[in-house]
């Protein structure tokens, strides 16, 4: 199976222009980029995709061993970029995908030209002086919460949300849902997302990097973003006014503008 099918890779924008690869983070799928990615289609080749286990990716390709750490996801990113023969790509990674990007860059630096990290955190759990924002108990609580949601989630969600008869394309999309996924896959992705420690990988990033820090982000608080900035050589730190963890949804204009300004 090709990486393109496996990861439901979608390519748009200007052929031959500098590619931008948008990687969704923990939570939903590539639809998260729906307000931001199109803004770059005029002057970039825009690539979006789903991590295996999410969105329209091929669930059959899910291998618990391969995806037992972020490296498996990073290998997928490298395969997607190689399949598309990208060079000098701008990799835009949200949340845990910022670290997946770091690992992918480690595996194949020649594919990357720049890196945009949206709400990154190299480690979510506090460790001595390091502030990740969470204690172990809190992460346990989070994983439990995820379990609580899967029962009602997996079967009931999509049909209830339907009803947009005037926008059938959205209905079709909704039927597949954005955040629905196999509970076991979601649980493992939550584990690898929140239990990884990529602090040691940061100094290896050798391309220009933009760290976009949201305001009042409980998931990736400012100290975590600053830590990434301080440890990625020559990176730029950009504080967004947008609150929460998903500025590309809550403040797409600001997010787009920040990326554009930096590029």
């Amino acid at each position, binding site marked *: 199976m090709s990486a393109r099918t496996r990861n439901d890779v979608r390519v748009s924008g200007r052929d031959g222009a500098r590619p931008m690869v948008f990687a969704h*983070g*923990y*939570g*939903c799928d590539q*639809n*998260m980029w*729906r307000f931001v990615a199109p803004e770059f289609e005029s002057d970039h080749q825009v690539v979006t995709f789903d991590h295996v286990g999410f969105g329209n990716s091929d669930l059959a390709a899910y291998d618990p061993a391969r995806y*037992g*750490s*972020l*490296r498996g996801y990073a290998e997928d990113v490298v395969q997607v970029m190689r399949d598309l023969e990208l060079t000098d790509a701008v990799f835009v990674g949200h*949340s845990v995908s910022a670290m997946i990007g770091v690992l992918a860059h480690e595996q194949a630096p020649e594919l990357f030209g720049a890196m945009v990290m949206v709400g990154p955190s190299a*480690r979510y*759990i506090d460790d001595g002086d390091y502030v990740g924002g*969470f204690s*172990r108990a*809190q*992460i*346990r*609580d*989070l*994983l*439990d*919460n*995820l*379990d*609580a*949601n899967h*029962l*009602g*989630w997996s079967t*009931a*969600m999509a049909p*209830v*949300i339907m009803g*947009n008869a005037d926008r059938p394309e959205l209905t079709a999309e*909704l039927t597949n849902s*954005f*955040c629905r996924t196999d509970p076991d896959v979601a649980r493992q992705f939550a*584990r*690898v997302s929140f*239990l*990884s*420690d990529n602090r040691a990988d940061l100094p290896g990033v050798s391309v220009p990097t933009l760290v976009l820090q949201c305001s009042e*982000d*409980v*998931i990736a608080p400012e100290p975590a973003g600053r830590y990434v900035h301080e440890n990625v050589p020559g990176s730029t730190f950009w504080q967004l006014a947008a*609150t*929460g*963890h*998903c500025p590309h*949804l*809550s403040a797409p204009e600001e997010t787009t503008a920040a990326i554009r300004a930096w590029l």
Partner: protein
Amino acid sequence: MTSTRQATDRRVDDASRSRLADLLVDDPTDLFENAPCGYLSTLPDGTIVKVNRTMCEWLGRPAEQVLRTRLRDLLSVGGQVFHDTHLEPLLRMQGAVREVALDVVRSDGALLPCLVNAVELRSADGAPLMVRATLFEATARRRYEREILAARRAAEASEAGSRTLQQFTTELAAAVTTADAAAVVLHRSRRAAHATGAALWLVEAGPHAGEDPGVVLAGAEGIPADLLDALAETAPGRVQVVLGGGVRTVPAGSALRAVWPALADAAAGAGCSDLVVVPVTADDTHLGALVLTLDDGSADGDLISLAEPGQHRSLNEVETDLLATLGRQAGQALERARLHEETARQAERSTFLLDAARLLARATGVTETVERLAEMVVPRLADMCLLDVVGEHGMARVVARHGDPARQRLVDELRAWAPPHRELPAPARAAMQEGRTQWFPALAEDWLADVVRDPAELTAVRALELASIISVPLVAEGRSLGVMTLSADRRRRPFTRADVELAEQLALQVSLMMAKAQRYELEASTSHTLQTALLPPPPPQVPGVSVAVRYLAATYGVEIGGDFYDVAPLPGDHVAIAVGDVVGHDITAAATMGQLRSVYRSLLVEAPAPSAVIDRLQASWPLLGLQRMATALFATLDLPTGLLHVASAGHPPPLMIIDGEAEYLPVVPSRMLGAPPAPALEWSGVLPRGGTLVLFTDGLVESRSQDIDAGLTRLREAARRSAGAGPDELCDRLLADLAGTHRADDIALLALTRDA
């Protein structure tokens, strides 16, 4: 009646309709505030701008405290993350969410499980304006869901357990040897318990009956060497305790430190927080114990563990049950593998002993045999084989062989500290002195240092990596013949009781072979001394004749016989000649021959005729008490005339060679000496000048492959071919032509030529 009832009914209807109308004309504010669910309205950034009383009561906070905070602020940490990563994005993308499970934190800190429905209000251009959310208490439902989830998890765990067990039994079924089975046990149990390492100890019978059983490490994986050593140190002491209980978890904490400080240190050094001991049993027989090392979970592949550092991990009931079952399954498989191996070893031992017996049966000399035996022992039974043997001049090391040519040099060096230079090394010395086998399954380093006599010896012993020793005394017929020492180095399994038994059986065979060989050697040397003493010296010079004699011993079997020859000058220019052969090839035969010759010599004093010699010997045979019969040929020769008298007691006739012609003298043999007597007949004739008389024993003409007649014919033809040769040359030629290199019998040959 009817109309009255109808009127009454109508009045009742009116009243209830009025009350219903009152209820339905409800205050919308009351409907909002006291609805059976919580209501929230927030700005797109989550700031709460409206909240109903129900919600406030659930939260235990007044509305003023709730307003201006954000929805996520009301949630548990897990809920906050879920809110930010799922709920908010979904609202943005889909405009609504339903039945999202979130926990709301009440003012007293208690969690209120809720289900949240929300819609996003958007402007005409799709920009978000506001979010409306309803929250339903879902305590019971959530409890139910958790129970379902727990049940599913338990089912999954149980299914995983069954799968592990199935895989385990399948792999165990394929394991033939104990090592195979141990590897499966270690690998599977380690994975089942998520253990960092596993080690398997099996009970083995000790060197002496009645002793507490020792434990032997059957295999380990994932345990650092020092922790393994520390475990091994404690294992013998703990084995009885452990075997009594079920699966136990021993925290590597202060309690352990109090009893086994070294183990506690090693465990801490290896990051091991707990030790799990699983009994390995087969049908109530304790075979050993499986030890698993657990860490505090601080390393989980690439991932950070959720366990707090320093926390102890305990096995749950499912894991414990699974391990207990694995222990029983492992026991069955190990028992089966042991039986299989034991059978194979028995067959191997039988083959070995049979080979050894064959080798020893063909033995021709002690030294050569023990050397070839050592080649067989090393490497089939041991890495090194030493044989120290009692000899005429004290003890000597006759064999020192190592299976590894690179280490042979070290073994040769050890000869310097062995007999005959020094006394025996300690195990061999003890075996000799106590007359029983010394078995050292393992050699303690300090013991070694204690028993060696020289630092250089210790160096050589260490370089040999001796791990296990057996010294067996060689005893036969109550005599101590020496000692055989076998050793295994670290690369070989330590010697077991079965190895000791095999070594003892081998030592018994070697002892018997050596005793037999020594007896033969003794007898042979005695007989030769005797025979040499009994045989006459080279015949004296007798004027008028030339005489040559030859005596050839048999080349195999016992090198001794009863043949003799004799040449004696008699007064009056006579010479008496005799050749004889006593039946048998042993000391008795040699002794009989000696007596016979002495008696014959004493008879010669009277210069009797040959037939008279036979008659007198026959007559005196019972008086002499001679135990064997004999054949003999007696002759006298008158030197001046050549007159020859010959008489035979069952002996082959003499050969006369005259002028190139050889003929047997027609001497009529009388009965053998020792047989019932009958008168002896005498042949008389003349040995002309230049003629030769040849006397011989049947060893020259008789062999297993040809009868005596054919032999006599060959002898006559050989004599004809050699006619004209002097007696010495004739003897040599006849022996060259007739005496093979392999003779079962002695040969006595006498040639006498009358001077021309």
